[in-house]
């Protein structure tokens, strides 16, 4: 007939409760927390490595022909992402970075999409028969 | 003219039986009229007797064939009606009258009904005669009549399996009881040369010879068998279960009350041995054992009527304990409980009959969800269940409470604790019946159950109303009915004088018999203004429901099957709701598991073999006689 924890229960009555008052006291996620994806579209070269390694297939790429090149938009659908950071690690250009922003509460799914577009210039039109491929960014 | 009412009320019942035998076979209307008239007039006659006897305190004595006592020695058979016997006669005639009306409709799809009504009227005539007669041999004759009528009625529906076996058990045990009573009566007659109760009481005052003590032991066991006290109760559950419900209502309302009446007369009148503490202890022990075993056996039953039968036994335990206390308050509690028991147990048996009438079975595991199909019966059953478990506004509460009060005051603390515990266990078993018969899921058997016809519902409503009235106005019930009966039990001088001639009692008692004042100092009843409170609180509850606003109790819109709207299905944690009734045997797992040794022992003790039961009765007889010889003088 022993009641465990009675001592702890009684003297924890007089101690301060150990609850973090979250919504009123903002709380930073710990260092290196894999939160919402930040896509730096200028660095991206549209190689598609991230799409290949993304397990849930949360990343989609759509291209649109424009007059001076292709306009590529990369779309990261956070509702489908497992936040495993594989895309960030495999991105050769370091264009994807997971911030430590954890609360992404929304009422409709559409604003869970992180997307960025960039123009990929086509290499300059080769004059007919020119010899060397000049290095072009 | 008032002299002749007692005899008339008995003879009319027998006359009804005789007429039914002659003309009953013709058509049901003739039968019903004869039965209704005979039970109605006998009930009316008893009602007319209330004013002279109960209020003015007169005692009617009537000598059969006008054989008045010769030189104050009683030769003829005398009928004696004082307040106590009128109280029991009232119970008997009330139950007989209502059960008669009930059985018009209830028995309609049985055949050979004229034989049913003959036996029915013989049974009621026998008990009426037993309660009103003042002569112990005449009482024995009446016992024989109603026992054999009861046995025949138990086996009336011989197609029910177990009916013949129950009747056989009842006849063996019943006749053993009757033979004990007969042996006691003959011994008394040999010793005192008279059969008249009043004269025996006068002669027996304070001179116990071994023969009279032996006859006391025999008659005590005989009446114990008749009122189904525990060691000799084994015939009751089978008999109540297989008999038609209108008859089991008579059994529990009347037949075991007759046994209790016999016990009271035996102990308070004939042998005046109740004021010996050893005698009190014997009765209280028997009463408490009856209470406890009755209710624990009822908890594990799987049949509705068998459960009610075991409850009758345990409630009789209450009455016997109340009477065994021999204080004015104790007897008041005992008699009040006898009245209440007749009312609510009769009501419950009528509900069982209604369930049997519309569904065809009373097995708790097969029934379920009848409240939707039979709302009236469900409501009436709830009133009966609440009054038997003693919840305040109903009548069980007042009488049980009187018994606790007097038991605790007399120092029998264990008895009070057991009594309160038994009352909680009664509540438990009736919750089990409520859940497995009326609420819960609608079982396959009850799909096409319909409400019982109005002919059966009228007596049920009358009984329910009576249960409510005796619960709310206890002081009037006690003032007019119970207190006269209690003073009659305790003050036997008036009984003797009325029977023989005045001053007869003084000659033998050498002092006037003191009439104890019934101290109600402790008996706090529900005073009328409490009902004012109850009414106002109900009003409060009603206003609360309306006032709170924001409520939309949505009328359950009839959802047609093709729209799969699960909103109104019961919650099965997501599954499709299918039939899974929790009721009958699998309630109270905790209780049965904890006391499994006790319940297994009890289960095997009730073996159903007649010789075991007879062995019990003979051993109780032996123990009682030994007890009386060792302790009483």
């Amino acid at each position, binding site marked *: 007939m022993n009641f465990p924890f009675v001592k702890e229960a009684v003297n924890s009555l007089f101690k301060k409760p150990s609850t973090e008052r979250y919504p009123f006291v903002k709380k930073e996620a710990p260092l290196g927390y894999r939160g919402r994806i930040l896509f730096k579209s200028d660095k991206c070269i549209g190689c598609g490595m991230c799409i290949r390694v993304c397990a*849930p297939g949360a990343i989609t790429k759509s291209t649109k022909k424009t007059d001076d090149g292709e306009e590529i938009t990369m779309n990261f659908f956070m509702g489908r992402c497992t936040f495993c950071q594989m895309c960030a690690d495999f991105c050769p250009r370091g264009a994807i970075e997971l911030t430590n922003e954890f*609360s992404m509460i929304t009422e409709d799914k559409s604003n869970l999409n992180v997307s960025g577009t960039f123009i990929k210039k086509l290499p300059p039109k080769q004059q007919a028969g020119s010899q060397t491929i000049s290095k072009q960014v | 003219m008032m002299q002749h009412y007692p005899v008339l009320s008995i003879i009319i019942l027998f006359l009804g039986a005789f007429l039914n035998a002659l003309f009953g076979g013709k058509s049901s209307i003739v039968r019903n009229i004869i039965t209704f008239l005979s039970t109605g007039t006998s009930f009316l006659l008893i009602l007319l007797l209330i004013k002279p006897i109960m209020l003015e305190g007169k005692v009617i004595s009537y000598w059969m064939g006008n054989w008045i006592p010769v030189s104050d020695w009683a030769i003829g058979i005398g009928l004696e009606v004082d307040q106590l016997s009128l109280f029991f006669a009232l119970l008997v005639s009330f139950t007989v009258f209502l059960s008669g009306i009930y059985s018009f409709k209830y028995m309609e799809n049985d055949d050979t009904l004229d034989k049913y009504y003959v036996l029915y009227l013989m049974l009621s005539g026998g008990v009426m005669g037993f309660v009103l007669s003042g002569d112990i041999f005449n009482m024995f004759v009446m016992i024989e009549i109603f026992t054999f009528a009861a046995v025949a009625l138990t086996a009336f529906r011989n197609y029910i399996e177990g009916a013949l076996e129950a009747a056989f058990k009842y006849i063996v045990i019943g006749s053993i009881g009757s033979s004990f009573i007969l042996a006691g009566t003959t011994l008394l007659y040999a010793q005192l040369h008279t059969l008249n109760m009043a004269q025996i009481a006068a002669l027996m005052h304070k001179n116990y010879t071994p023969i009279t003590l032996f006859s006391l032991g025999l008659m005590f066991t005989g009446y114990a068998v008749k009122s189904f006290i525990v060691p000799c109760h084994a015939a009751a559950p089978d008999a109540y279960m297989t008999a038609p419900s209108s008859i089991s209502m008579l059994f529990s309302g009347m037949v075991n009350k007759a046994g209790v009446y016999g016990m009271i007369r035996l102990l308070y009148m004939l042998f005046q041995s109740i004021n010996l503490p050893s005698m009190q202890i014997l009765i209280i022990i028997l009463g408490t054992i009856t209470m406890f075993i009755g209710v624990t056996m009822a908890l594990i039953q799987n049949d509705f009527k068998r459960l009610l039968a075991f409850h009758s036994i345990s409630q009789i335990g209450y009455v016997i304990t109340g009477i065994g206390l021999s204080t004015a308050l104790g007897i008041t509690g005992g008699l009040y409980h006898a009245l209440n028991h007749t009312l609510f147990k009769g009501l419950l048996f009528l509900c069982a009959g209604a369930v049997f009438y519309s569904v065809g079975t009373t097995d708790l595991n097969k029934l379920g969800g009848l409240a939707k199909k039979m709302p009236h019966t469900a409501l009436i059953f709830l009133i009966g269940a609440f009054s038997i478990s003693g919840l305040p506004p109903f009548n069980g509460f007042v009488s049980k409470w009187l018994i606790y009060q007097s038991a605790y005051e007399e120092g029998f603390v264990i008895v009070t604790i057991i009594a309160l515990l038994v009352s909680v266990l009664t509540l438990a078993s009736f919750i089990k019946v409520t859940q497995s018969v009326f609420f819960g899921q609608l079982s396959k058997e009850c799909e096409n159950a319909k409400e019982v016809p109005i002919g059966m519902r009228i007596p049920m409503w009358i009984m329910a109303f009576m249960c409510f009235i005796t619960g709310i106005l206890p002081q009037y019930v006690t003032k007019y009915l119970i207190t006269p009966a209690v003073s009659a039990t305790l003050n036997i001088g008036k009984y003797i004088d009325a029977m023989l001639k005045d001053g007869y009692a003084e000659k033998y008692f050498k002092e006037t018999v003191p009439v104890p004042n019934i101290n109600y100092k402790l008996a706090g009843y529900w005073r009328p203004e409490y009902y004012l409170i109850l009414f106002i609180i109900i009003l409060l509850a009603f206003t609360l429901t309306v006032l709170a606003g924001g409520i939309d109790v949505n009328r359950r819109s009839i959802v047609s099957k093709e729209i799969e709207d699960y909103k109104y299905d019961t*919650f099965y*944690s997501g599954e499709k709701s299918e039939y899974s009734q929790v009721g009958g045997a699998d309630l109270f797992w905790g209780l049965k598991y904890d006391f499994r040794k006790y319940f297994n022992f009890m289960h095997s003790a009730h073996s159903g073999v007649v010789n075991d039961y007879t062995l019990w009765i003979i051993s109780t007889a032996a123990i009682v006689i030994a007890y009386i010889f060792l302790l009483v003088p």
Partner: protein
Amino acid sequence: MFKKIIEKSFEKSPWLFHINAGSCNACDIEFVATLTPRYDAERFGFKLTGTPRHADIIVVSGPVTEQSKDRVIRTIAQVPNPKVIVALGSCPASGNIFAGSYSVLHTLDYYVPVDVYVPGCSPKPEAIIDGLYKAVEILKNKRRDNK
């Protein structure tokens, strides 16, 4: 006078009911973690109830597999109005890694109207508290709209 009190009390005492529609239990543990002393959702009046009949906010976690589909629909239908449905974690929103499997054909909003999405492959307890906080506001608006 009662209407105002009832309005206010809807915001103060939302009761939760949790349905596991095939989840890997990561979100379930995080959800229950909000009731522990460290995050203590009870200070806002949140209480986990045993039956949908008592609930106001229904928290669904896990991709709605074929097996749990009609159970989820049936349980959510049994919740009295006004009710709010919260999709906990990214599985109900999109099926996450289980999306293409034979048993996960649609996401939660195909079966029931979802009010709040709490994304995160097992969102942090703080994120769940934010989600529930928004659900309470929606509950209050729903209560005011249809009453």
